[in-house]
Structure formats: structure tokens, C-alpha cells
């Protein structure tokens, strides 16, 4: 049984078909990259896998829970780093992580230990008492990364993990994600950054127009004769992009 199993997933918003028959499986130990252009259905897929929206059709299993019918059980087991960043909040990072810990039924000691460890790892110790709303976007992202991992979940969903982070912290986060997945966990990363996906993911799925158009394994043993991930991405997505995106000539005219 995979950590994440998606079969025939469909989700529409009015007349817009955001996800149209998505199918894939992610196993424990995998760092799965979910690549696609804007509007391809990546965020809707994550929202469906975490029980935030109900699918129109298809079956989804995450750690043997059904996010459609038992969303709280799913969210209890997984970690989520949403795309839109954190909402404005007047809690400090320490208080916010205490809030997350209480909501997730973690002991105060464990939250304190995790907070200290993550603050040191990502370098926000000096900001633990600053109001969240007064933090820079990068600092807010560090706090949000911490909340996604604070309960050491077996599966983590991450939408753009490196957004707003400086290069040094990006390297730390990339290394951490690789090691976390290697520890028999599944990390599901949605990103536009193909270089990052190629660098850290064990497997990627390329999505366009709400469907998974191809997958590629990026393990060391993968076929080196294949083209780069960027070439594959462009090849599979370019036709859709060319149709939807105006060219410079179009803009000029």
C-alpha cells in the first residue's frame, strides 16, 4: 500500500476543470516532485489529498485514510505547508508553534524541543518573540516549514518549499527534505522549480491541464541516456503552454 494513492481524481470549480482524471502513487521513502505550469491543477490536487476540498470523482488514500470522508484524520497524520503562506497573525512564532502543537495534541515539552531545534536549523531563534505579522516573508516561511514538520508526520505535502528563502536556508531545507524522505517517510513537493526538483526528488510527475502527463524516476539508477528534466517538461507541457500563453509577437501586435 502506497503512502499516497490517487485514482481517477476529478475536481471542477464551476465550469473550470482543475483536475481531470489524475492517477499516481507515492511510496514511503520517496521525495515526489509534482511539476507543472501555473493552473495545471497542482494546488487543487494537494488540497484534495489533504481533505481541504472534496473531489468530484475518483478515489484518494493517504496513509490509508480517505481525505474525502475523514479529512481530520488525514490532516492529523500529515504535515501541510500551504502555497499562500501564513495568514496574518499576531502570535509570535513560539506561540504559533504552541498553537499548532496543541491542535495536534503534542506535549508542551515536545513542542518546545522541536521549536528550539527548528529555530536553530533555519536560523530564526532571534525572531521567536517577534509578532508573526512583523516577520519578513522568508522568516514566515521558516515558521511555516516548522509547523509542517513539528509532529514528525509520515507524509508531508509542500507547496513551493523554498519560496522567499535565502540561498543558505534553501540548501538546508533541501538537505533536510532528502533526509526526511529517506527515513521511510513520503514527501510530496509541488514546485515550479525544475532544477530543485531534479536535484532533490527521487521521482517526479509532470502535470498539465489537470492530468498527470508523465512520470520520471530520478534515482541514481535512472537511465542517464534520457534528456534533462527540463527538456521532458517542455516537451510534455509546451504544446499546452503555447496554446494558452501569448507570444511576444502577440503582445507586440
Amino acid at each position: 500500500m502506497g503512502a499516497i494513492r490517487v485514482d481517477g481524481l476529478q475536481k471542477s470549480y464551476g465550469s473550470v476543470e482543475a483536475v481531470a482524471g489524475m492517477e499516481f502513487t507515492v511510496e514511503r521513502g520517496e521525495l515526489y516532485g509534482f511539476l507543472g505550469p501555473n493552473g495545471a491543477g497542482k494546488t487543487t490536487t494537494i488540497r484534495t489529498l489533504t481533505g481541504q476540498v472534496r473531489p468530484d470523482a475518483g478515489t484518494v488514500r493517504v496513509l490509508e485514510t480517505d481525505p474525502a470522508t475523514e479529512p481530520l484524520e488525514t490532516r492529523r497524520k500529515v504535515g501541510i505547508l500551504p502555497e499562500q503562506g501564513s495568514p496574518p497573525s499576531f502570535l509570535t512564532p513560539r506561540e504559533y508553534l504552541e498553537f499548532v502543537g496543541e491542535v495536534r495534541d503534542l506535549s508542551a515539552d515536545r513542542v518546545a524541543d522541536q521549536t528550539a531545534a527548528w529555530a536553530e536549523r533555519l536560523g530564526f531563534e532571534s525572531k521567536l518573540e517577534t509578532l508573526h505579522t512583523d516577520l519578513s516573508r522568508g522568516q514566515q516561511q521558516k515558521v511555516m516549514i516548522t509547523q509542517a514538520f513539528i509532529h514528525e508526520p509520515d507524509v508531508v505535502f509542500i507547496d513551493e518549499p523554498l519560496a522567499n528563502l535565502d540561498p543558505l536556508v534553501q540548501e538546508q531545507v533541501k538537505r533536510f527534505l532528502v533526509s526526511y524522505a529517506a527515513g521511510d517517510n513520503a514527501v510530496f513537493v509541488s514546485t515550479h522549480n525544475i532544477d530543485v526538483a531534479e536535484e532533490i526528488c527521487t521521482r517526479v510527475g509532470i502535470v498539465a491541464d489537470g492530468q498527470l502527463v508523465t512520470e520520471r524516476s530520478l534515482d541514481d539508477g535512472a537511465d542517464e541516456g534520457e534528456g534533462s528534466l527540463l527538456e521532458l517538461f517542455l516537451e510534455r507541457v509546451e504544446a499546452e503552454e503555447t496554446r494558452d500563453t501569448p507570444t511576444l509577437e502577440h503582445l507586440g501586435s
Partner: protein
Amino acid sequence: MTGSVTSDRTDAGGGLSTRRLLAVLFREEWRMHTQLFGGWRFALFPLVIAALAVSGTVALLETGTAQGTIVGGLHALAVAFGLYSGTAGFAGSDMLENVFGRLSLLLSSSQTLPLSRRRLLGVFLLKDALFYGVAFVLPMALSSAALTGLSAATPVAVGLFWLSLCLVFAAGMATTVGLIAIRTRGVPPWAIGLAVGLAVVGIWATGSLGAVQSVLVPGRGSAITAGGLAIGTIVVATVSLAVYDPTYGRPSRTATDRFAWLSGALPFENAPLVTKSLLDLARSSGGVWKPFVSASILLALVAALVGVVDSITGIAPAPGIFFGGVLGLSAFTTYNWLTQFDSLEAYLAYPVSIADVFRAKRIAFIFVGAPTVAVPYLAAVIWFEATLLDAVVGAILLAGYALYYYGLTVYIAGFDPNEFLFDAVRFATFTVGVAVALVPTLVAGFVVVPPSIELAAALSVGGVVMGVIGVVLSSRAGPRWERRYRRE
């Protein structure tokens, strides 16, 4: 952009002309509201305002209310609405960035484009004044037709009444913007609050209330007074924009850990969610005083209205029943403050249900709302010398109606109480819901003074029933909005 880009540029090289900037801001405002509520629901909103204003005026006239009282009340509403609309001047503060920033791309474009933030704010506020002047104040002015009766002169009368209302609306806006501009120069909020409080006390103590009332109803005063108010408003607005410091940035704030202590002290299953709401409210601009100030403004407006009615007709209502019924309306503003810096979607990243979030908001509402209405209510019943029976009945009405208005707001508006103010269908539903409870109560409060035992018993039962309805509505709001959010 069209091919007329060149003609849109100012000679001074300042980019878009003010006229063009105004047009673009208007377009964004229209699209924002039609996107949020659907085109016709927003387009119908002025009609709802007009219907309410005209029907309310007719009802008041039929019940013997003096024309002067109605005119004064409409101007008081216009001033209050202007004071509220001026809060758009909070550019750069957490309030504006959080409330408007995500919706108004243009307002934040001064950060990325060569547009002066001061100029952009000025045009933004001008747009607001014109937009609300037409979409909201003009429908209010139609009540003039009900006051004077239909005749060939009605259009002129409505037009003049509109100008009068617009003038005080703009004065209200300019006042708020002026206070915000002072704030951007580093004057602490408490000092501004103190100055405003002293000014109000000074007006009252020197017996100048009548003079202020005459200034704030320009249509009834002399042309010189109206002209003075217009010039004063322009001067205040211009000076405010000059004083406004667009580079003002609040220093980074820190806080000691209160979360664990407070959450541990609250004996509720959803204590962390309640605690987050309370701390967010306490630490945002204005702190826990915001709901109290909102309730106090409501109290002051109603008290002034009672005074005017008393002085004209010689009829004073039973203060307990009257203020108990009206002050319950502050449930809307209190809930609005509790959700101002929150996002329901954000909670979906945690293992909590939307129903849990709404339950926590209800607990937070009771914590904040109870003292918020209790203090002004006590002040009112003491000041207006309510009888014991009247005060007790009013307290029951206050508690029951506050819960009812809260439940009504949450059920209709979910987590976005501010937005439904511009949705014709939801606003009309809310208004009818409020009127069902409030109108009979106010009538009873005016007709039987002091209240008889029978009336007191009937109103008390009514208050309890409405409170129960409110609890039921707020309990059902969670599942209702959970279905909606997960479906969308």
C-alpha cells in the same frame, strides 16, 4: 491599455494622469465587488439601501417621528459611514494591508511602479468618496421624497438632500483620514484617542452640541455654514494628505509568551483556537478596545437620537429596553473585529474542522462581546435613570439579541462579515432578520414607559427565544460553511 496611452500621461512625466488613475481604480473597485458577490447582487445593493431608507422614513413618519429627527438621523448615519470609509486611509498599516491589500492590486502598486504612494492614496480615497457617494449616499437621499412628498420639485429636493448628506459623509471620511495621517507621524493611538475624547467632552461640557448638530445637517443651516463645512473638509483632506507619511513603518513588535498560559486557563475543548482569536484581537491595531469603541459609538449615536427625539416630541423611551435592543447590534462589529485578521482557509492546514473554528469564534465572541456591551449598557441605564424592572428586561434583551444578531451574522456571512455589506441579497436578509427582533422592541420601548409587568415578561421571553435562535444559527453555521468551503 488602449492606444490612448500617450494621452493618459501627464505633462509632468508623472505617469498616469489622475483622471486615468481614478478610472482604473473605479474599474478595480467594481470588479472586486462583482467578483466577490456576483454582478447583480452588488448592482442591486443601492436599491436595497434606497428601499430601506424610504420605507424606514415612511414608517417613522407614520409613527409620529418629527421630520427634523429623521433628517438628523440620516445625517448621523452618513457621518458614521464616512468615518468608517475613511479607514481606507490605513495604507501601510496591518489593517489596510491585511484587509484591502490582497484585494486591491492597484493600492499596493506604489511599491512596484513609479507612483507616489501619497498620490495613490489621495486618488484612492477620492474614488471611495465618489463611489460610496453614488452607490450608498444617493440611495439614502431618496428618503427625501418620502419626507417632502412627490411633486415637481422632488428631484431638486433629493439632489439638495444628497449634497447635504455627501458633505457630512466627506467630512467624516476626512476626519478619519486626518487622524490616520497624524498617526503616521508617530503620534501614539492613545494620545489620538484621548484628544478625540477630550474634544467630545468639551463639546458636551460647553453646551455646543446644538451648534455641532446644526453644522452636521448642512441642508437645514445657512449657506455659509454649509460652505464652511465644505471648505473645512477640503482643507482637512488636503492637509491630511500632506501630513500623511507614506514611508511610515511601525517598528517590529515583540511579545512575551501568553499563549500557553491563556490556552491552559480556558476550560474549553477548542481552547487553542479561542486563544488565537483573543490574542490576535488584543495585539492588532487598537487592541481589545476596538469592539468597545465600536459599541460606544453606537451608544453615542443612539443616545444623541434619543435626546433629539425627547427634545422635539417630549417622549423618551424606556432606556433599558431601548438600549438593550439596540446595543445588541454591536455583535456584528465585535464579530467583525474577531475575524478581521483571520482566514478560514488557513485553518484547513490543521486537523480542525470548520465547525470547531466557528465554535471557538463563538466562545471568543462571548468573552469579548459581554464586557463590550455591558459597560455602555450600564452607563445608559444609569444616565437615563431606568427603573429596575426596565434595566433587568433590557439586560435580558441585550444578551439574547446580541446572541441572535451574532448567530444571524455568522450564519449568513460565515467568516467574512464585512463583505456581505455589499451583497444585496445577504444584506437584505440580515436587515430583515434584525428588524424582526428590533422594530417591535423599539416600538414597545417607546409606547409603554415604564414597562408593565406583562410587557416586561413578554419581552424577556422574546429575548430568551431570540438568544436560543442565535445559538442554533451559530451552531449550524459551522457545518453549513464547511460544506461550502469543501465543495468550492
